[in-house]
Structures are given as structure tokens and as C-alpha cells.
């Protein structure tokens, strides 16, 4: 087999993060200047460069780079860019690239400042075909829901300035992002549940991380149903969106610091 991917590690990240960042700047500026195709091409190139780094990491670690917080942040930066591009392509909403680009850059900077180097070993329970799709679904959902929150903030901030038709359109985008995020949360959860059954016997054990996953889902369900029933009260929906996002953060990494979850979670990221 021809090896297309080089063996990369964290020290190489800067050389990929910098071009990604520059491409994102080009993409954002082009979008704001209404040069649509250039914005899409630059954004897509940023995705390719980033994907190349992830692939190289995967190759040199001989396992998917999904085990440490730093490694999951990598995917987050990656999917946030994709989420932004999808919104941009589908709804022609030009501001989204600025937000998704910024969010992605913040996570890249964290990873440059605080890389989490980790050995190749992987505990036996993680050696499962469910591992990769499970974590990737979750991280993808996280980035979609981050994009939804950004949309929500933007809507609340610009409520007075814009016409109500435009606001309705933006709320519609936010809803779509939540639906997509929710759909991947559900898929990630189901994959995780089936995997847990195969790995240790119960699909659901109310471990702290699982409890917070349930809380997050229920909270986003509240948002969805509140939007269906009270479409005119977006301020309340927005509040639910913020709370849900906070729950999501607890679920993602907050449980690692929660006193109630100390020494009891089987889902701790290797530190």
C-alpha cells in the first residue's frame, strides 16, 4: 500500500494550523465581500489542510486521535469549520463563517498552547468498531450546537435592527442547526449504548457522563418542543438554547471537574 499520509505529531500542528487559519481569514473576508465561490473554495481548502493533519496524527498514533481532550478539540475545530460552511452554502448566511472561523481558531490556539501528548496505547475496551463513529457523532453534534448558539446570540443581538422576515430566516437556520445537532447526539448516544452493551453488559448505567448526556438531550428536546409550541417567544427558546449549551459543556468536559462525579465515571478522558 502506498503511504500517502506522513507521520505527524503535535509538534507539526502549527504548520497546519497556520495555513488553516490564513485560509479561514481569506474565506471570511471573501464572504463578507460577497465573493461567494472564493469563500467556499478557501473554506474547503482549510478543511482539507486540517483533515490532512488529523489523518497524519491517526497514522502515526496507529489509533484514531480521539482519546485525549486535546485530540477531541482537534475534531471540534475541524467540524466547526464544516458546520459553518454548510450553513453558508445552504442558507447563504455570510456572517456564519466569521463566527465558526473564530471558534475554530480559538480551539486551535488552545491546542497549540496546551497540546496533550499521549502514547499509542489504547485500553482494550476502546478497541471497538463503535468507538470512532460514536465519538465523531458527538463531536460533530457539539460543533453544530455551537453554531446554533452563535446564531441564537446573533439573533438576540440584532432583533431590533433587522426586519422580522430576516429574523425568521435566521431563527429557521438556528432550528435546523439544533435539529442536525440533536440528530447526531442521538446517533452518538445510540452507538455508545450498543457499544456499552457489547463491552460491559449494560447499554445505560447512569454513570455521571451518561446522566449529563441525558440532561443535554432532554434540554435540547425542550428547546425543540418550545419552538414548536411557542414560536413567538424566541427569547425563552434562546434561554433554553443557552442552558442546553451549558449542559453540553458539562457533559463534554465539565464532568471531569464535577465533585459529584469524582472517581466514578468510566468515561473519563485519559489525561
Amino acid at each position, binding site marked *: 500500500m502506498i503511504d500517502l499520509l506522513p507521520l505527524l505529531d503535535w509538534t507539526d500542528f502549527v504548520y497546519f494550523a497556520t495555513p488553516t487559519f490564513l485560509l479561514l481569514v481569506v474565506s471570511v473576508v471573501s464572504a463578507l465581500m460577497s465573493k461567494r465561490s472564493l469563500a467556499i473554495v478557501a473554506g474547503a481548502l482549510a478543511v482539507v489542510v486540517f483533515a490532512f493533519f488529523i489523518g497524519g496524527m491517526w497514522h502515526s498514533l496507529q489509533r484514531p486521535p480521539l482519546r485525549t481532550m486535546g485530540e477531541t478539540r482537534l475534531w471540534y475545530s475541524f467540524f466547526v469549520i464544516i458546520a459553518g460552511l454548510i450553513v453558508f452554502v445552504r442558507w447563504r448566511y455570510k456572517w456564519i463563517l466569521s463566527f465558526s472561523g473564530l471558534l475554530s481558531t480559538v480551539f486551535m490556539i488552545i491546542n497549540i498552547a496546551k497540546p496533550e*501528548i499521549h*502514547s*499509542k*496505547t*489504547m*485500553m*482494550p*475496551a476502546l*478497541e*471497538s468498531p463503535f468507538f470512532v463513529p460514536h465519538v465523531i457523532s458527538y463531536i460533530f453534534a457539539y460543533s453544530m450546537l455551537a453554531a446554533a448558539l452563535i446564531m441564537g446570540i446573533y439573533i438576540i443581538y440584532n432583533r431590533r435592527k433587522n426586519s422580522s422576515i430576516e429574523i*425568521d*430566516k435566521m*431563527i*429557521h437556520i438556528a*432550528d*435546523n442547526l439544533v*435539529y*442536525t445537532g*440533536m*440528530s*447526531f447526539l*442521538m*446517533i452518538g448516544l*445510540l452507538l455508545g*449504548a*450498543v457499544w456499552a*452493551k*457489547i*463491552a*460491559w*453488559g*449494560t*447499554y*445505560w448505567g*447512569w454513570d*455521571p457522563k451518561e*446522566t*449529563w448526556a*441525558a*440532561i443535554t438531550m*432532554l*434540554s435540547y*428536546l*425542550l428547546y425543540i*418542543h*418550545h419552538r*414548536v*409550541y*411557542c*414560536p413567538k417567544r424566541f427569547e425563552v427558546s434562546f434561554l433554553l438554547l443557552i442552558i442546553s449549551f451549558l*449542559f453540553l459543556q*458539562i457533559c463534554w468536559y465539565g464532568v471531569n471537574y*464535577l*465533585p*459529584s*462525579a*469524582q472517581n*466514578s465515571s468510566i468515561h473519563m478522558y485519559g489525561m
Partner: protein
Amino acid sequence: MWGKKWGWFESVAIVAGLGMVGVVLQLSVGAIPHNAFVSPVNIVGGSVLVAIIILCFTILYKYNKKTPLAFFAGGKATLSSMAALLLVLVLMGFTKQIPVSMGIELTHPIHRIGLSHILSTWYFLILYLYLLFVLGFVIINRVIRIKANLRDIAFVMNHIGLFITLFFGMLASADLQRYRMHTDTESDYPEWRGIDNITGQVVDLPIAIDLLSFDIDEYPPKLMIIDNNSGKPLPLQRAESLSLEAVPTEGMIDGWQIKVKEYLPYSAAVATPDSLVFREFRSLGAVQSAKVDVRLNEDSVLSGWVATGSHIFPYRSLKLTDSVSLVMADPEPKQYSSRVVLYAQNGDTDSATIKVNQPLRYKSWYIYQLNYNREQGRWSTMSEFELVKDNWLWGVYIGFAMLFVGAAMLFMSPLPKPDNEKELKNE
């Protein structure tokens, strides 16, 4: 009151009332014991719930939405029932949870009110059932005028899928049986006794297991530099190590230049007149060892052996200075596997290799690799299994499958444009 439409006040009052009833029951009766709802109680209870939903709905249908029962298929009941359960779960998320059997005996108010074991409290059960009740209502209300469009199919998949999952999940949590079983390759006959995970009692199981062999597949070991006093690997912020994947090899650990000249995965220490060396040794208690050269300064090199320990031989480190030593860390396991033969009471037999992530299935039993004798490590003759029996797994999996399709449809099916969404609201 009858005939008048119920609103937000009533919806909050209902969940608050149900919650209060739960708290009062909790304080007076105490937590629900883990085996309170084993079958057939759970089956009867579940059927009663479904019957109540259908009965109530029939009444509603007959009176053509005039009764407040219509409320339970509406948004206010939906939102309030979800919010109430969410609140309880958030409480659970912020409080440390302990097993009920432990919580029941403690008298601090936190335990009395069940905060430390929320899953066994009355208010959790009642609010869970209420959510199921509302969900059931919502489903029937929509299904009776279902249309064959994407949106309605997505609705059915998500809502019926969730109902089925929550329903069978509830039945399963009462009936789930888990046992641990210790087997040993040295034993002459199969093991059929299991230890009940909850009660700790030893019981005779309908299946027996004969352990033929147990194996650990390990990652190559790593060399590390540790602080002699604390035993912590260095550098403290981010420990460095040198993997013995391919030998000979060399590398730097915490500023020390290390050359690995020889690596013996199965070895034992042999005393020579002037030192201790390691030689190939392929039986019980063999350790992993490596011969290394460490550069101490410009013109001196320290040569010696480092080795992992086993239950028979002590480990061996190489002292570099008074404060640091070179050690070989215990290799990390990659996979555990047990070759077994299974015998069932009815005469069935099966043989398989059970690994982590590869349980053996027999009817509604799953048998998992759980543990081994840690002290003996790769020489362990003991293998511990967990035997799990879940009679309702099929139900939960049907729910999962529907939810999976529902999730995919949620992603693919287009939402209505904001304009026609409005008319949807005005019924």
C-alpha cells in the same frame, strides 16, 4: 373547571403536585428497593400504564376534546413533563450517587430525601411515568390522523421509538440480572456458581463455564525515569517515555540519553559472580527485561538491566543518581482473552474465546471478560466473567432502531419554512 382549557398554571401544578407526592412517599415509605418491580410486577404495571393511556384517550375522543384530558396531548403538558424530569436529572447530575442499599441506611436529610440515589426515589419514578403518560397521549393523538409524509414518519419514529425505549428500559432495570463468576484453568470441573452483583449472594446458574486458557496481549513496555523519593515519572508536567517497540533503539527521557541494546519479553534474573543479568526464561513468572546504556556525562556510560516484576520475581531498576532511576513500566494490556467451553442446564454446549468487546452470547445471557488475577498478570490462571441476563433487550433494541431512523430523518427531512410553520400552530 371541567370543560375549561388547562393552561400553564395547571401544567406546572400537576408536575409540582406529582413531585410533592413523590417526596412525601419517599419520606414516609423510603426508597424503592431495587427488586420491588421484578416481573411480574413490572409487566403488570407497564400494561396498566398502557391501558390507562388508551382508556383516557378513548374518553377524550368520545367527548371530542371538551375534557381537560386533551391537555395531556398538548404542548404545555409536554414541556412541563420534560422540564420536571430534567430538573430531577440535573439534581442527580450535581449530587454524588451511591447504591440504594447504602443510601437507605444513612440518615442525613440528603439521603432521607433520596438525593444520593435518585433513580430509586418515588419522585423520579412518578415523573418518569408521567412523561411516559404524556408521550403516549401525544403519540395516539397524532397517530389517529397520521399522513404518509416524511414529517409524520419522523414523528412516529422519534416518539414511538422513545416510548418503547423508555418503557422497556424501565422493565429491564427491574429484571436485569448480573453475576460475577471466577474460573480457573487449574480447576477440574466447570464453574456454575455466580455471585449476584447486588445482593452479593452465591447462586447456582443455569449455565456453567470451563476455562481452558487465559491470555493477555500486551503493548510493548516502556522505559521511564522516575523520582526516587516520590516514584513519579519525570518530567513531572508531562512524563516522557521510550517504547521498546523495535529493539535496538535509542532516545532521550528527561534529558538522559538512553540506548536499548537487548530486549527479552520472557526472562528471569540470573546472578553472575559480579552482577545480575537477565536470561531468556519461558515459564511461570517470567518478566520483561532490557539491557540499556545510559550516558551519565561526557565520558561515562552506565550499563545495566531493568525489568518489570512479576508475582514471583521483584522488578529491577537502574539507579542513575541519588534522586532518579530508570525503570521499565508495567506493559499496558491490549486485549484479554479466555478460551472457554459453555455448558447449559438443558445440555447445550458451546465453545468460544471471550474478549473485551467480544462477549459470548447464549440465549438472553451475555458473558463478558471482566478481570483476572492482577498480581499474576499475564501468568494469571484465573479469569473472572460477568454474566448478564436482560430479558427485555429486544424491546430496547427495537426502540433504539426506531430512534436511529428517527434521528436520521430529523437530519434529512426539511423543516417547514417559517411562514407555513405559523399555520401549523393555529390548529
